[in-house]
C-alpha cells in the first residue's frame, strides 16, 4: 500500500462534493454527451476557475469532478507516473473534496486522469480515461483564428494539416512529430490527442474505454467513444510509424513500454526505465524483484 492507494474517507467540509456545484457539473455532463455524440469535435464549455492554475489540468479536473461519485476508484498520473508532484496534488484534491478511493492500479481504477500518457496496461470496457489538454486545436499553428478553425472543422478542410506533415517529410525525410501527433477520429474530425508521445497513439484506436478530453483554459471538451477509429495522420507512402530505438527497461526488462531516460547518479550514468511506474512495479513484483520506483 503506497500513498496513492487510499480508501474512501471523509471530505473537506465547506465545499460541494468534488468542489464544483451541481449545476456546473450538469452543464459539463451535457457537453460531454454532445462530445461523445460527435467524436473528435470540440464542444465549447464555460470552464470554471479551479483551485489549480489554468493550464495545469483544470480541464481534466473539471471533467473528472463532474463524473466522479462515491463508488468510483480514481487513479491520477502525470508523465505516466502516479508519484509526480502534479499527479499527487490532483489526486489529493479529489481525495479531499470527493472522499473517493484512490489507487495506482490501472486495472482497478474506474476513472484515470492523465497528463501526457496512456497507461501501458490495456484499458477495458467501463473505464474512463480523462486527458488534460493544454491546446485542443490541431490547426492552431496553421491558423491562429478560432473563427476560422471552427469553419475548417465544419467543412472538414484538413489540407493544411497535411501541409505540415509534408514539410516534415520534405525537411527530414520522415514525419518528425514525436508527441501530440494529430489523429482523425471516426474518419471525420481532426483531433489533438493531447501531448502524449506518438508511441501512445495506437492505444487510442478502437479503445474499449471511453476517452474524454478536457481543455480548461481553452474552454473545450471532446471525446472518443469506445471502439471508435482513431487514425494517426499520414501519407499513403509514408505511413505512421513509431520509431524508437530497441531498448529495454533497466528495472523490469520490458521491451514494449515507453521509457524515461534517467540520470541515475552524480557520475551521469543513464538508465532507461518505464515511464508508467505502476506497470513497471507490477512487472518487477511478478519477477520476484524488490520493487524500485523509477
Amino acid at each position: 500500500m503506497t500513498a496513492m492507494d487510499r480508501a474512501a474517507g471523509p471530505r473537506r467540509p465547506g465545499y460541494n462534493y468534488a468542489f464544483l456545484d451541481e449545476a456546473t457539473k450538469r452543464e459539463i455532463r451535457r457537453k460531454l454527451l454532445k462530445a461523445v455524440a460527435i467524436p473528435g469535435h470540440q464542444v465549447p464549455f464555460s470552464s470554471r476557475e479551479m483551485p489549480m492554475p489554468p493550464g495545469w489540468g483544470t480541464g481534466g479536473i473539471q471533467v473528472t469532478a463532474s463524473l466522479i461519485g462515491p463508488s468510483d476508484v480514481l487513479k491520477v498520473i502525470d508523465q505516466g507516473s502516479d508519484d509526480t508532484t502534479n499527479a499527487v496534488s490532483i489526486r489529493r484534491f479529489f481525495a479531499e473534496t470527493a472522499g473517493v478511493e484512490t489507487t495506482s492500479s490501472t486495472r482497478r481504477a474506474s476513472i484515470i486522469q492523465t497528463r501526457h500518457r496512456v497507461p501501458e496496461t490495456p484499458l477495458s470496457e467501463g473505464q474512463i480515461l480523462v486527458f488534460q489538454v493544454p491546446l485542443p486545436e490541431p490547426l492552431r499553428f496553421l491558423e491562429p483564428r478560432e473563427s476560422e478553425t471552427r469553419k475548417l472543422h465544419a467543412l472538414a478542410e484538413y489540407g493544411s494539416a497535411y501541409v505540415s506533415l509534408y514539410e516534415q517529410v520534405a525537411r527530414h525525410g520522415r514525419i518528425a512529430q514525436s508527441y501530440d501527433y494529430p489523429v482523425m477520429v471516426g474518419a471525420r474530425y481532426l483531433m489533438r490527442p493531447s501531448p502524449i508521445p506518438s508511441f501512445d497513439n495506437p492505444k487510442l484506436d478502437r479503445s474499449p474505454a471511453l476517452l474524454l478530453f478536457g481543455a480548461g483554459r481553452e474552454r473545450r471538451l471532446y471525446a472518443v467513444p469506445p471502439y471508435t477509429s482513431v487514425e494517426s495522420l499520414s501519407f499513403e507512402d509514408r505511413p505512421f510509424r513509431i520509431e524508437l530505438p530497441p531498448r529495454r527497461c533497466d528495472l523490469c526488462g520490458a521491451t514494449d513500454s515507453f521509457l524515461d531516460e534517467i540520470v541515475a547518479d552524480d557520475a551521469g550514468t543513464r538508465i532507461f526505465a518505464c515511464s508508467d511506474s505502476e506497470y513497471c512495479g507490477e512487472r518487477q513484483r511478478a519477477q520476484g524483484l524488490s520493487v524500485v520506483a523509477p
Partner: protein
Amino acid sequence: MYVAVKGGERAIRNAHRRLAERRRGDPAVPELSLEQIREQLGLAVDRAMCEGALYDPRLAALALKQARGDSVEAAFLLRVFRNTLPRFGYSEPLDTGAMAVERRVSGAFKDLPGGQLLGATADYTHRLLDFALEEPQQPAPPGEEPEAEAGSGSEATGLLPRALAQLGEEALIEAPPADEGAPVPDITRDPPLFPAERAQRLQTLARGDEGFLVGLAYSSQRGYGNTHPFVGELRQGRVAVELVPEELGFAVEIGEIEVSELETVNQFTGDAEHAPCFTRGYGLAFGRSERKALAMALLDRSLRAEELGEELGAPAQDQEFVLEHADNILATGFMEHLKLPHHVDFQAERELLRALRRAWEERRSAPEAAE
C-alpha cells in the same frame, strides 16, 4: 537512486511549510492586518478586485496577504473563491449617472457643468520619494479640511450631469447603446465564441490584466490602429447596486460599490450612410483603478473598428488577439505550466532528434563516399 521530480507527497508538504515561513517573513516584524492592507494599500486591493472579478475589499486584502503582495496570484485566489459562491441573480445596470462623485475630470472640455473635481490624485504631484513617510505620520487634526474651492473637490453633493451629454444635444456624438432589454451574455456561464459582441468584450476587458491592457492601449496611440481619443469624462465614486428579487418584483438596493468610469470621445470619419461624428469608448473598473478604466475604454473603442468600418490590421483591433490573451490568470497558468514535468514529451523529442541526427550524418557522409 535519483528521484528527479517525482518527489511526491512529502516534498509538497515541505514546500507548503516553506511558503508559510516566507509569507510571514521575519517574525520580529509585526504582522500585517487586513485592515492595514485595505486602508493603506488600497490601489493594490482595487486591482486584485478587478482582475479577481469580485468586489470585496476585505477578501482582496486577505488574498494579497496570502499571495505575499503578488497581484496576479491574489486575483487568482479571488476568482477561485468567487466560483464557489452561489448565484442569487444579476444586479440591475449600475446607474453611474447617480454616482456620489468624488473625482471627476474631463480632458475634452475646459469646464463643464458641475466643474472638474480633482479628488485624490497623484496626477500633479512630483514623483519624488517622500522620506517623511519612512516614519509613521501623525493624523491631521480634525477640522483642518482642505479649502473647499472648486476643483480640489471633497465629495460633491448632488448629481453631476454627464460630460458627454452636451455633445449629444448637438448630435455630434453617437447615442449610447439603447437598453433593448435583451439578456446580457455572461462570459462566466457561456463561453464566448468569436466574433464576440460588445458586452462580452467589455466583460473580458474588465477582468483583463491591467499591464496587458495598458500596453495594447498604448500601442493604439502609437500608430497601431489609432482611435484619436479624448477623455470625455472620468468619474470616480460610490454607486448603489440594485437587485430585483423575484418575490418582490421591484428593485431594492443591496449595497454600494466604488467604481471608476471612463468614457472616451473618438473621431470617426463617417461613410456613405453615416455622417461624421464622435464615437465612444467605455471603461469601468472596481475601486479607483482609473488607469485600468482608461486602457479599457481605449481598447473598447479600438475593438469597434470593424463595426465602424475602419481599416483593420493592428493588434489592438483584433478581438481574438486582445480577448484571448487579456486574462492574466489564464496566461500565467499556461505560461507557468512549463515548470511542470514534461519529460515524456522531451524524451520523445530527444529520441527523434537522435534519429534525425543519424540520418543527417549519413546523408552528409554519403556523397563523400561516392566521390
